[in-house]
């Protein structure tokens, strides 16, 4: 009996090794999310530009939506070709308004909503950078940026 068990050991070892080498199921989970982008400034905001990416490149931008202020146009500027082609693993968004200072947003304002497609089940690590913020006269102003996922 013992001899039989000993004889089976090599076969069991081979089987375990084969099962370990079996390719794991690919992490192909895909889901969608929306990020509300907010800029906060103490002065009227007339122009802004930000860049959004995901640190591991697991994000694809699939849509860009306008913000809440009517001072800005229907849609901000972004690389429409890259987004339409599904190749935008990051996005640069910008917009400006020629409205008078009294009609510009002040304080915390949602400037855009970015719709993204995410890969995998790992929580995304978004990297959001405010590139430029300008006042009504075109001068740079102090502002901060953050996002929220509704």
């Amino acid at each position, binding site marked *: 009996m013992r001899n039989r068990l000993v004889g089976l050991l090599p076969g069991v070892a081979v089987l375990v090794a084969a099962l370990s080498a079996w390719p794991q199921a690919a992490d192909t989970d895909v889901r969608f999310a929306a990020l509300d982008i907010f800029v906060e400034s103490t002065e009227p905001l007339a122009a802004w*530009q930000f860049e959004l990416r995901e640190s591991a490149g697991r994000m694809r931008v699939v849509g860009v939506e306008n913000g809440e202020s009517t001072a800005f146009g229907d849609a901000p500027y972004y690389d429409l070709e890259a987004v339409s082609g599904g190749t935008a693993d990051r996005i640069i968004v910008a*917009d400006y308004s020629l409205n008078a200072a009294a009609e510009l947003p002040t304080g915390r304002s949602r400037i855009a909503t970015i719709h993204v497609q995410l890969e995998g089940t790992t929580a995304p690590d978004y990297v959001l950078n405010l590139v430029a913020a300008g006042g009504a006269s075109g001068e740079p102003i102090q502002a901060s940026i953050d996002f929220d996922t509704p």
Partner: protein
Amino acid sequence: MNPEPETIELPGDIVERLERLDKSVSVLTPAVDRQVREAAAVHFAQRPDRVRSTSRRWAVVGTLAASLVAGVFLVRMQTGMEATMLANDIDGSGVVDILDAFTLARTAGAPGSQAEVDALIANIVALNGNPP
């Protein structure tokens, strides 16, 4: 019993020539060796080397010309790129961003200027033209 060696009578002029060839050879001293080497150097230095020096001259000239052309081309390319960037840095901040387009939009008034603003912003937000 050994036979007597045969005596051959040769003509006088042949004997004379053979005697000349059979002269003893001079010993090659270092001085003689140096004289021979110097004479050879003088002899070969006098030989024309036109073909080799001419082709070498053309190779040098050609390399210099090619380097000059490449250098001018690279400088002009770099200058062109910098000129484009400088031209788009409308507010003189050192970077080209939405504030440059905003300044252009605020100061523009001629027909077609909106197209210029849109084109500038298109470059600003283009992912290919703006590495992360």
